[in-house]
């Protein structure tokens, strides 16, 4: 569905059902250079099991208009404004990678509006190497290939996502290239470099953790090379998070869709 958020059109996938603000709401927030589509299986499941869902495209990403926001804090404000636009008072916030930082910051800025916080494929600080930042600035397509290879831990993840016959390395690379190309075409920006700089610059994680009031869950990939599980210890402790580790890399929703679903069911309904 389309919403007006801070003067720009924003898109949110609603799981194949008409959005009902009266149901318990789950908001899914994607990572760098992605859009709502890595969430669709999970979003459909929860939408058909008693929840309303909003799997958003962040500003400047795929179907949402406007420029990408400058940092995690401003994007968290946008997310809270999106809840206002959708008529949602309180929601479970679920984020992947960059999106997990946005969800964390939103849960800290408006603790009363976050019923649960789930951070998937996360790390704090989410530092990006200078070499990768430079590659992202200068040769973004090469950087996309590097990140794609680092993100997926297997060449045989089954049953594949969103269905059999999909080649995860190819579909993830194409999604990143597409999101990058759309932003370049509409906004004239290097979205890859922007998103990775946003992750790298975020320094408010521990401060935000102190403000979060809801139960927190982490879902991590044991083979994750982008946000390695060991880089979550301090923030997990600060948030008193329950940690679930799955046999996957950084692209958890694609590599282990059933495992993430079970972990989310435990986190959101347990």
């Amino acid at each position, binding site marked *: 569905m389309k919403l007006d958020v801070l003067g720009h059109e924003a898109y949110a996938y609603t799981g194949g059902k008409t959005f009902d603000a009266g149901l318990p709401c789950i908001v899914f927030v994607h990572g760098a250079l992605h859009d709502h589509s890595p969430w669709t299986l999970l979003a459909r499941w929860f939408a058909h099991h008693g929840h309303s869902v909003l799997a958003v495209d962040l500003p400047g990403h795929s179907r949402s208009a406007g420029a990408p926001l400058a940092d995690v804090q401003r994007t968290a404000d946008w997310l809270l404004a999106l809840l206002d636009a959708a008529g949602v008072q309180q929601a479970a916030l679920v984020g992947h990678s960059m999106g997990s930082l946005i969800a964390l910051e939103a849960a800290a800025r408006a603790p009363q509006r976050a019923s649960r916080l789930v951070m998937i494929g996360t790390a704090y600080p989410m530092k990006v190497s200078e070499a990768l930042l430079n590659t992202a600035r200068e040769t973004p397509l090469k950087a996309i290939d590097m990140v794609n290879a680092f993100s997926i831990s*297997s060449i045989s993840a089954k049953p594949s996502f969103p269905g059999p016959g999909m080649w995860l390395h190819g579909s993830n690379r194409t999604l990143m290239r597409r999101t990058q190309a759309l932003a370049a075409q509409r906004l004239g920006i290097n979205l890859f470099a922007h998103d990775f700089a946003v992750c790298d610059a975020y320094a408010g994680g521990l401060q935000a953790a102190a403000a979060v009031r809801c139960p927190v869950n982490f879902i991590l990939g044991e083979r994750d090379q982008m946000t390695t599980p060991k880089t979550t210890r301090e923030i997990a402790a600060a948030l008193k998070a329950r940690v679930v580790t799955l046999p996957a890399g950084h692209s958890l929703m694609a590599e282990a869709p059933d495992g993430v679903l079970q972990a989310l069911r435990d986190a959101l309904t347990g």
Partner: protein
Amino acid sequence: MAGSSDPGFDTLALHAGAAPDPATGARALPIYLSTSFVFENSEHAASLFNMERSGHVYSRLSNPTTAVLEERVAALEGGSGAIATASGQAALHLAICTIAGAGSHIVASAALYGGSHNLLAYTLARFGITTTFVKPGDIDGWRAAIRPETRLLFGETLGNPGLDVLDIPTVSAIAHDAGLPLLVDSTFTTPWLMKPFEHGADLVFHSATKFLSGHGTVIGGVLVDSGGFDWDAAHEKHGRFSELSQPYDGFHGMVFSEESSVGAFLLRARREGLRDFGACMSPHTAWLILQGIETLPLRMARHVENTRRIVAFLAAHAMVARVGYPELEGHPSHALAKRLLPRGCGSVFSFDLKGSRRQGQAFIEALKIFSHLANVGDCRSLVIHPASTTHSRMDDAALASAGIAPGMIRLSIGLEDADDLIDDLKRALKSAEKAA
């Protein structure tokens, strides 16, 4: 296998999509010869049917063995995913019918495999899908043939029978300017010789019966999507492809482009085309094709090496009027071949024997290693004389208008010792000479 870059082609040919079987530890891929797959419980069943989970339900829609083939071909092509079909023809039909219907129009190369030409010129026309054929090198012709109701452009990487190289960068640019995808039949080249997506194509299909399988044992096809075509933008600008960007009543009102930004085409093709037309691949067939793909890089290198030796032999022979191989300087597609097919132009080509139709028959009958049959892309060398077989009902004038000389011979060069193949051809050419 995660690292700083994706595995190389040869590694993907062996491993993409497969791992030791988690249930048994079997290292080689098991053949899951099962029509259907047990649900864990009612909720699991419902969520599979409603696309809330990924998994296998019924082997017409997907199968664990067939899915490995689909992932592997997608990996080799650099695509987002693939669907295996009962034949190459079924793959072409599935590609077209996913985005076209009655009233739709196709612009296609005139240099097509006969079966594809029949489908477009006669069979689909009965169902209201019409085609305009253009010479593959007529760039203005491609552009001029596009109409508001056009849904795709279509050609072969190496056209039949003259091996015209499709100028994929130029034709895809024309397609994209008009908000249309380019579909390419890549059977003759395989991804080892060319990856059409790298040159701008949007959809690729193979008759996997040929080089992908390589052993002449099974019939199959694979349809691959790059995932890069923006169906929503084309719908917004031109009103096309509502099949992908608007709710589909036949599957829970699903809007496929919302479900997957890069997999919309394949989702609809599987959930409508495979489901309803049913031209699926048997898992046994998929397994045999995978056996072939494991050695694709080795076989294609040898196919091309043998072909180059035989092309050189024939081009210098007194009984040969013409050899149609794009690596030869006189071929109309020579410059394009150098640019798009630097590894070689495959191993299927034709040459014109000097003399009559009867001499052509004498040549065929004298061959001992080459098998006279209607197929290409086998590990064994194959031959056919169109004037006395596939085009035998045509008189010489009709043959000429189809670009087929009475003495034209089509060869598919296999993996035998090149010296033995050359000896076989020498003997047959001598017989043809004597039959004058």
